[in-house]
């Protein structure tokens, strides 16, 4: 019997309508902005699949579709065989997301925010908080601040709470949308080490989007390079580097791979 893969995306296309602004601020003609163009990919069980690409290439749009927050125009995506549109409720039980914006009720403390999540996900609140506290300690969060308002925490501390919030509900598929963006190098390393150990111990699968090539190289089993809404190359870090390696020259970095294949840098302007 064939077990469904954790994530299968088939020919997903998504466009948004945007109105040009005329001088003076009046609405002008509407135009369609294609965020995703026939994207197909699969993520295997226990794998960390990296999506690499500049701002505006469609990484977050794809993550939102998989999270059931956005409806694709064409194509389909399925999490363990459950379609993200037709079986959205079932998919939501299997996934959790950590986004680049650490979205919290800022007046509440990390504990209150985590309690909210625990109850939302049907966990026993006390057990959930205990597990969350354990994870917070592992990522280096100062435990004497668990009752302070989130708005009083630094960006790095907030993101650590966001990561724990995404993980302590034990999702089967974790969607990590640039989770370490904005963290200082020390915090980044702590979070990366934590993610590796949790993925290994819990056997979870992850889709990981990032602009940090080194991070992708270090964490991901396979990488998809995205540009202008399409996946232009896919493979293990070594396979991708082999695509652009020239003879006996030193091994190229993933940045070299990206520049060669996409013809632009990761700092390309956002077009959403």
């Amino acid at each position, binding site marked *: 019997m064939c077990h469904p893969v954790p994530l299968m995306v088939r020919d997903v296309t998504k466009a*948004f*309508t945007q109105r040009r602004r005329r001088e003076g601020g009046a609405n002008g003609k509407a135009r369609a902005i294609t965020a995703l163009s026939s994207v197909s990919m699969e993520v295997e069980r226990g794998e960390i699949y990296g999506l690499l690409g500049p701002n505006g290439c469609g990484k977050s*749009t794809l993550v*939102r579709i998989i*999270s*059931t*927050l*956005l*409806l694709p125009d064409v194509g389909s995506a399925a999490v363990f065989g459950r379609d993200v549109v037709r079986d959205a*409720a079932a998919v*939501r*039980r299997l*996934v959790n*997301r950590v*986004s680049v*914006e650490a*979205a*919290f*009720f*800022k*007046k*509440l403390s990390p504990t*209150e925010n985590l*309690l*909210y*999540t*625990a*109850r*939302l*996900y*049907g*966990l026993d*609140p006390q057990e959930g908080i205990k597990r969350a506290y354990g994870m917070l300690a592992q990522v280096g969060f100062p435990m004497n601040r668990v009752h302070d*308002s989130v708005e009083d925490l630094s960006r790095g501390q907030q993101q650590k709470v966001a990561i724990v919030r995404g993980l302590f509900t034990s999702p089967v598929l974790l969607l990590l949308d640039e989770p370490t963006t904005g963290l200082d190098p020390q915090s980044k390393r702590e979070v990366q080490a934590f993610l590796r150990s949790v993925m290994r111990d819990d056997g979870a699968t992850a889709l990981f989007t990032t602009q940090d090539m080194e991070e992708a190289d270090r964490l991901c089993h396979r990488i998809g390079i995205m540009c202008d809404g399409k996946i232009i190359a896919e493979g293990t870090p070594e396979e991708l580097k082999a695509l652009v390696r020239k003879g006996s020259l030193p091994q190229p970095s993933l940045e070299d791979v990206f520049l060669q294949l996409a013809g632009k840098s990761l700092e390309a302007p956002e077009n959403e």
Partner: protein
Amino acid sequence: MRAAIATARVKGRPVYAFLGRSFALTKRYWPWEMTWLLYSSAMVLSIGFLAVGMERVSGIAVPVDKVLVYLLTGSLLWQYLSELFWETSNIISYERWEGTIEYTFMAPISRLTHLFGMSAFAACYAGARLVVLVGVCLLMFDLDLRGANLLGACAVLAISTLSLVGLGLMAACLPLMYTEKGMQMTSVVEAALLMVSGVYYPIEVLPGWLRFFSQFSPMTYTLQGMRAALLEGAGLGRLWGDILPLAVTAVVLIPLGLKVFAIAEAYCKRHGKLKRSG
């Protein structure tokens, strides 16, 4: 029995997630809550003083006690309705502002549980404020409630709350779909509803074309029923004429509210409107 209680506790956790979160937020913003309560008290008391001053203004004798209860019923119900609408739609706006709206919408709960949790808090909150405002009125005015059927008035309000929740769910679509102005639009809905329902006057004084809409507003029956219970001591037999339409509107409006919200949600997911925050 124990197993049933345990199951109920587990199933009730997501609903309590919304109640606990909203209660914690209310506690955090307590100075603003106190300020808002003062404002609401001033609004209600002003209407009460309008009744008390009516003889002086009009120059003719008026049954001040009756007019006072009549007008205060309208004013207090306006406060109750506006809090119910405000809280149901405010939490959507607030979540959008905080950026948590996507996180809540991707939680593994049914939209019914989500909206029930939101509405449950809105009803509790509006009810608690109503109790405080009634207390303020009792302190400031010598209200003649002899012969009032207080239980009957409470029953009318309780049934009315169900249909108002249905309307509140529909109103909650506005901040969902219109980021900047959606919240303010709920005030328009609320004001129009109260105007055709006879908030400070019998609906008979309305022109015919406006009175046509009165029959469709649950607030019409709420105001009629509560005034009958408080001013005339009307019993269940008389109140049934207002309770039945309220029950019918609740049965219609709650599923309709859920359906409208589902359509709004699908629209937002199609056009990427859940993403927008702040």
